[in-house]
């Protein structure tokens, strides 16, 4: 029989960070039924937990030092186990980066949904984070592009010609326009100094 990989949860590794308690067994059982490999830890997550696919953590008595990463920086989806719905505890659980939650007492209910919701939220947060980093670096490169264009303008090109020249240069060097601009600006600053052979004579 060919295998289908519905949601790819088979063999995924989950750590449960919770003091030993009978209700944890309900969660352990259900994760096992779903097909995950389950480990328990308390009071701290060991460093090997960094390779986990999911972390379930106690929101009632948890604190920052239990995790081998900074709040909100988990490299995997995190699911908060919430007993006390007090604002302080909920704020901490959210600061730690809850991608989903389960209410105590844990049972056979809601576990599969929590896994899927957590992973979806985690993936979406990662994708947004990557997009934001990319946009930020493009934004900071804008000033460099303007300076590179100005170099050509100072040498007698129109603005349109200067921009076109910058684009052609980037293509010739097989780099992004941002990187080409950065090199041109650096070369111009050292015009009388080093010549790395990438200078373009704008004349």
């Amino acid at each position, binding site marked *: *029989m*060919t*295998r*289908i*990989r*519905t*949601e790819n*949860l*088979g*063999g995924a590794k989950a750590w449960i960070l919770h003091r030993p308690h009978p209700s944890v067994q*309900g969660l352990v*059982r*259900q994760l*096992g*039924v*779903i*097909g*995950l490999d389950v480990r328990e830890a308390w009071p701290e997550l060991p460093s090997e937990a960094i390779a986990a696919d999911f972390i379930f953590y106690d929101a009632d008595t948890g604190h920052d030092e239990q995790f081998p990463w900074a709040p909100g920086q988990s490299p995997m989806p995190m699911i908060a186990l919430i007993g006390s719905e007090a604002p302080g505890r909920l704020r901490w659980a959210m600061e730690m980066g809850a991608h989903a939650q389960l209410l105590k007492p844990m*049972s*056979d*209910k809601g576990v*599969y949904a929590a896994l899927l919701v957590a992973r979806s939220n985690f993936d979406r947060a990662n994708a947004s984070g990557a997009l934001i980093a990319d946009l930020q670096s493009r934004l900071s490169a804008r000033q460099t592009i303007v300076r590179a264009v100005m170099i050509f303008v100072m040498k007698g090109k129109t603005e349109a010609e200067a921009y076109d020249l910058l684009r052609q240069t980037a293509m010739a060097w097989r780099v992004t326009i941002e990187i080409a601009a950065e090199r041109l600006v650096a070369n111009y600053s050292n015009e009388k100094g080093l010549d790395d052979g990438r200078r373009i004579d704008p004349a």
Partner: protein
Amino acid sequence: MKRTVGIGVLLSRSGMYAALSRASRDGVFRGVEEVNADPSLDVSFRVNERDPEGRLDRYAPLCREILRDSGARHIFGCITSASRKEVIPELERFDGILWYPVPYEGFEASERVAYMHACPNQHLLPLLDWALPTLGTRAYLVGSNYIWGWEMAQIAREKIAVAEGQILGDRYLPMGDTELDHIIHDIRTLKPSFILNSLVGDSSYAFLARLTELKRETEFADDVAVLSCNFTECEIDAAGEAAEGLVSAGPWFEPDGGSGGSFHEMARQSVHELAQLLHGRPGAEELPLAELLHTALRSGRATRLDPVHLHARQPAIIARLESGRFNEIKRLPVTRADPYLTQRSQPVHTGSRLKVVS
């Protein structure tokens, strides 16, 4: 001397899927008769029955009534997943156990439900494994508009994508609806290699009838196969001639032309499974289901239910309806259930090989 244990029955004697629930109900009562007449078992059952009449909102209150008023803890019943999900909170609240002897779509493992029929790694996946190389890879999916229809289509879609097949369309009909023009129009235009029919009850019979008319059209000369994981012998009368040729997957088909099919047989076997678990163990009916199974296994008894996820191990049989009877096409060995489709499917008996019966 037998001790008497009360059990509940929660199956509809009327409504849109009455043919199915009547088969299930007959199976339960047959099982009870057999257990009560069996002198080798020290337990006999007394039935407390409620009839939800196929109405979804009646299941939870009637389940509560059985648990609270009759003292019975083990209930045999429910046909649709919707009704099963309705009663689970009642089972939790009043410490009941549901014996659920019909096929379902998986993705559930309540500690209070004995899943006694088959789930997709025991019906749909083997069926598609057979269908894709045999019939072709252009699939059309049709189902009743609730969780059974939706999830069967979802799993089929994933499976067919892996096999590089094509989903030509998927359509859902409200329970009991027989307005099929748009679906028949699709099929006439698209000419799929097969149709996965996950319609339930009257919608299914109407669909099969319309499809038979379509096949009579001269321009629709090619036959189109209809597959199902929920059509059994108990619906042959209701569907009539139109069901001929349908290919079904399930854990059991009638060997001698009986009309109950696996709905009847798995219900009957569920009663026997409980009787076996309670035999010689007074008070065991009060144990949580997992504990009941674990202790039975430790004392060397065989159980059909898996003590971890409480699903039955089952063979997967694929059969075609010919002259009013299902003839086996293929039989896969007894396999552990994989309700979340995350395990590798492993046959229970490592020695048995795939048999092709023509």
